[in-house]
């Protein structure tokens, strides 16, 4: 099956790296700073692509590593929240497991990742590392 064409993975201050280990899980590392006026222009195509690609290829899980994302504004958080909504609206059968890896010592990560978990009623996994 052909890969879906990837969107642009680098903005002026933030980047996304994607790794495909052999265990069926996708590792997505997002790093830098997201404080642009409209971060959705960068993030939303990536979110849509990752979600569609995971479903199309039957990935068992997707780990979003935000430990090196030092700051994100609320508009950027909205993009991730949109992903969680999209994920929750996907039938559980055949759906990949979505998880966040964060640093408990970074205030925005500790607070917002906890809120993501609550928003998803525990469906989205979160790990402090």
């Amino acid at each position, binding site marked *: 099956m052909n890969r879906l064409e990837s969107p642009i993975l680098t903005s002026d201050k933030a980047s996304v790296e994607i790794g495909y280990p052999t265990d069926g899980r996708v590792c997505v590392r997002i790093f830098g*700073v997201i*404080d642009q*006026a*409209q971060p*959705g222009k960068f993030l939303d195509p990536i979110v849509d692509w990752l979600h569609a690609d995971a479903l199309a290829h039957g990935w068992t899980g997707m780990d979003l590593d935000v430990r090196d994302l030092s*700051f994100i*504004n*609320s*508009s950027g*958080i*909205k993009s991730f*929240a*949109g992903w*969680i*909504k999209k994920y929750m609206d996907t039938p559980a059968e055949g759906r990949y497991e979505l998880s966040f890896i964060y640093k408990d*010592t*970074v*205030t*925005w990560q500790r*607070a*917002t990742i906890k*809120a*993501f978990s*609550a*928003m998803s009623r525990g469906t989205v996994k979160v790990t402090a590392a």
Partner: protein
Amino acid sequence: MSSLSPVQILSVSYTARWWSFIPSVRGILESYCGHSTGSAEFSERVGVTVHELLENAVKYSANPDGLVHCSVDLRDGRLAVQVDNMARPEHIDCLRREYDTVSSGNPLEVYIEKMASDIDGGSSQLGLARIRYEGEAELLLSIENDRVKLEALFEMPDEVTAA
């Protein structure tokens, strides 16, 4: 034990065109609070708050050449971050509604509800909720004619108040 210095800590004005100024102000204030209180967590809460307040002021400023003013004071043992700007009537009405919603509920529940709601006109509508929840700040809104002022109040960290 370190302590904060004078009553007025920061006062800055810039035009709403300068989005790039926002991270600079956040950085200055985070650095000051971090060094003054010794609390990285407190400095990050203050930093995210001033960032969100300034983003709102710039986004909803009535005129891109209008001034956005930010001041930070130490008042009655609390840190006060104030941002004011001129705004259009429709934005003022929206702000009033958002403020009432955010101020009345449980901060985490309001934050989750805002995250789950649809985006309205490209705006996340998350900023004020984030200030209450993640910033752990009390929010105060005052409006005079077409000038809007939002103030976030922080209790000082225990390490400072115990000094």
